[in-house]
């Protein structure tokens, strides 16, 4: 693709992303979403972000692997434990990297 057609593609993707982010901010006061929608909303980031994350942890080069050949799975578990106990962003990311580097060094 040429540079200009790439930039047009970015613009289309950016406008769509902006429209999604602006949607309910723009509608506020004019439209109230139904109750079931409000009840479902809190599950959206949990389901979407976990769907993005899980394959990154459970697969190595496209193959399912929860063994010791997959340090990312164990480092991810460590980060999940740290996040659950301390609920601290910085600590979670730092300990996940530390665990990954430690496991890569040991294994």
């Amino acid at each position, binding site marked *: 693709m040429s540079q200009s057609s790439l930039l047009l593609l970015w613009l*289309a993707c950016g406008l769509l992303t902006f429209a999604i982010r602006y949607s*309910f901010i723009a509608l506020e006061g004019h439209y109230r979403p139904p109750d079931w929608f409000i009840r479902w909303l809190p599950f959206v980031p949990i389901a979407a972000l*976990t769907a*993005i994350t899980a*394959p990154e942890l459970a697969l190595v080069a496209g193959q399912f692997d929860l063994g010791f050949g997959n340090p990312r799975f164990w480092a991810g578990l460590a980060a999940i434990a740290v996040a659950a106990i301390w609920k601290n*962003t910085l600590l979670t990311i730092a300990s*996940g990297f530390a665990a990954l580097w430690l496991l890569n060094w040991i294994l």
Partner: protein
Amino acid sequence: MTPASAFLLGVRALLPMLLGVAPFGVIYGVVALQSGIPPLAAFLMSSLVFAGSAQFLLAQLVGAGAPALLMVGAVGLINLRHALYSASVAPVLAQLPRRWKLLLAYLLTDEAYAAAIPHLLAEPRSPQAHWILFGAGFALWFGWQLSTLVGVLVGARLPADLGLDFALPLTFIAIVVPLIDSRARLVAALVAGAVAVVLVALPYKTGLFAAALAGLAAGAFMQGRKPA
């Protein structure tokens, strides 16, 4: 609270997230170049699209030669979760002039939302609450532009064995795990994760969308069973 102190509160709330976002931005820059995207276009995607995981996916789809319409659709699907953030902050922004709503909608990311929302929902609501969201959104925007620029300029020279692309899953773990405070939410996460792993081979990452929907449905079902 003055506008300046509210802005700084938002910046400070966002700063820890940059530990995960900065390496991810660098990696995005590297992946974009590897996908055959010219450096300038790779950098401009960060301000035109401004959505980390969607940019990653988009760069990979460009590299795979996917049809343009499918790429736009995939970005829309992966960013659909931002509608939640929009609905969630909408009441806080209701009285603001339109230019504020446009600006804050552009800056509404996973990280900015997660950093600002505890302050936005605090009662009594500060009349400067929008400055908190602006501070968090701007800090993330600036960090993202800077780190993707670094990735485009020097990323190819970084040692690959640092595993910097692990930053995205780690950032999302840091955002999601503290949100899981009920059995229904745990079920939503477990189902979404399991389905995403099972369907990972589907073309153009369509399995991600099916997994998110399955997790959403499972969570809502569990919540519906719970006695009120």
